[in-house]
């Protein structure tokens, strides 16, 4: 009896077509993500990481292969997915509150129960006093929290994070990424993070999946176990095992031939 998986990708193939020919992006890509697990996917730039997320989110259809959740017969069934993009994309013409209920508005789910949930999140994430403000008045970290609430409002089973902090400067990024990931962990949601930053992957994830160069396939999977000494954003990076993980990932990516 194993832990139920949240997401199972089996033999995903995807290629895109231009006038100059066909490019294979993903080739026989398979992996599982368990419920409540935090998995990071790393790979060299342009290897198809973002394409993979778009497929999992249902924005693109794979040419072949299945994406299944919790149904062992392998039938195609998408999990309810929440997607955090590279930028917060809060709309300047809406107040913070109007921004976080955008998903509910689109899905016609503005029930009292959901609104209460959103209000609770605003309070928990220290945004309550900013609910009437415009996004421009918020700090980088607060914007990311607002974007997170917007995603969580729809109660997704699986959260996809596509280099969600890459637009922030390095210092803000360190604290915001630790902050956001701590908040998501508290909700017990399953997370799939895409990043090209190896340290970020090691410091945040339970398991790192390394993709090969294009056409991408799973090169190896490395479970991460860090001994944490304190709970600062830098704690994971200061862990004694950090460097050996980093070197191993570095080697795997460097000779990234499929």
């Amino acid at each position, binding site marked *: 009896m194993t832990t139920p998986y949240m997401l199972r990708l089996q033999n995903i193939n995807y290629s895109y077509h231009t006038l100059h020919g066909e490019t294979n992006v993903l080739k026989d890509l398979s992996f599982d993500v368990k419920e409540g697990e935090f998995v990071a996917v790393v790979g060299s730039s342009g290897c198809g990481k973002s394409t993979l997320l778009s497929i999992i*989110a249902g*924005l693109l259809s794979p040419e072949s292969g299945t994406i299944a959740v919790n149904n062992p017969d392998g039938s195609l069934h998408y999990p309810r*997915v*929440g*997607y955090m*993009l*590279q*930028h917060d*994309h809060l*709309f*300047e*013409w809406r107040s913070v509150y109007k921004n976080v209920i*955008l*998903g509910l*508005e*689109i*899905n016609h789910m503005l029930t009292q129960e959901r609104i209460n949930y959103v209000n609770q999140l605003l309070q928990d994430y220290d945004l309550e006093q900013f609910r009437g403000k*415009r996004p421009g008045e918020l700090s980088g970290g607060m914007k990311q929290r607002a974007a997170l609430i*917007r995603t969580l409002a*729809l109660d997704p089973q699986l959260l996809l994070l596509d280099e969600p902090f890459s637009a922030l400067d390095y210092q803000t990024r360190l604290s915001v990424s630790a902050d956001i990931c701590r908040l998501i962990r508290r909700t017990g949601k399953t997370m799939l993070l895409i990043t090209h930053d190896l340290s970020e992957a090691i410091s945040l994830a339970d398991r790192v999946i390394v993709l090969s160069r294009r056409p991408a396939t799973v090169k190896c999977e490395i479970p991460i176990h860090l001994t944490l000494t304190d709970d600062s954003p830098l704690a994971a990076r200061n862990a004694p095992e950090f460097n050996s993980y980093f070197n191993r990932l570095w080697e795997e990516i460097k000779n990234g031939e499929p």
Partner: protein
Amino acid sequence: MENLKVNTHAEPTKQELFMRQHLRHHRQIALLRLLLLVLFLIVWEVSARTGVIDSFFFSSPCKVMLLLWEMCKDYSIFGHVGITLFETLVSFLLVFLVSLVTATLLWYSQKLSEILEPYLVVLNSLPKSALAPLFIVWLGTGTKTIIVAGISVAVFGSIISFYTAFRQCDPEKITLIYTLGGSRRDAFHKVVLPASVPLLLSTTKVNIGLALVGVIIGEFLAARRGLGYLIIYGSQVFQLNLVILNVLLLCIIAMGFYKGIQMIEHHIRKKMQL
């Protein structure tokens, strides 16, 4: 005299000094603008009276004002101004509606926009006054023809500008709507349209001027009323007073329209807090 320099009030702060200077600057500009106008009118009047310019061809401020007074007394001017205003506003509103609907359709259908693109470009670069005689043949002379002429000048450029504004929307913001489970319709209503508002407003400001141009062209050719008609009529019977009066009235109308749209723009921007 030394005592006067002892200031019983507190010294003005740096901010207060800045505010004063700012205010003074703006008063100066307003005053000089007005002065320029007065100077122009005086020079015009004096040169007409002293015979430096021939007042038969160049009229004079007094003659123009006298004519305006007469036309106000028999109420004839109000009918002419009214019809031109009416035609321009109707053209403008129709241009706005038609280009909003068309640009929306073009945004929804990539195929349609690709098919129509060369036609729009050609129609936009065509001098629209060339079409006016056709409108007269098809629609006769009258308000309908003039409104169509007004529309024809502004509408194609307006469609292109609106569509370009829609296309400039950040594709990642549209992706966000899709990731939240939204449709293309949601993407349009929640992102594309609100994000385009500043560009739509600036296009609208240009459109009101173009609609006025079209209406005047229409009135030159196909009207018995309106400022355009008065200008053409005045030039044909060598009543240059009439021509100049109407040109001046057009200046005032154009400025009024511009200010009006600017106020609406300001109001919308404030409401959306852009």
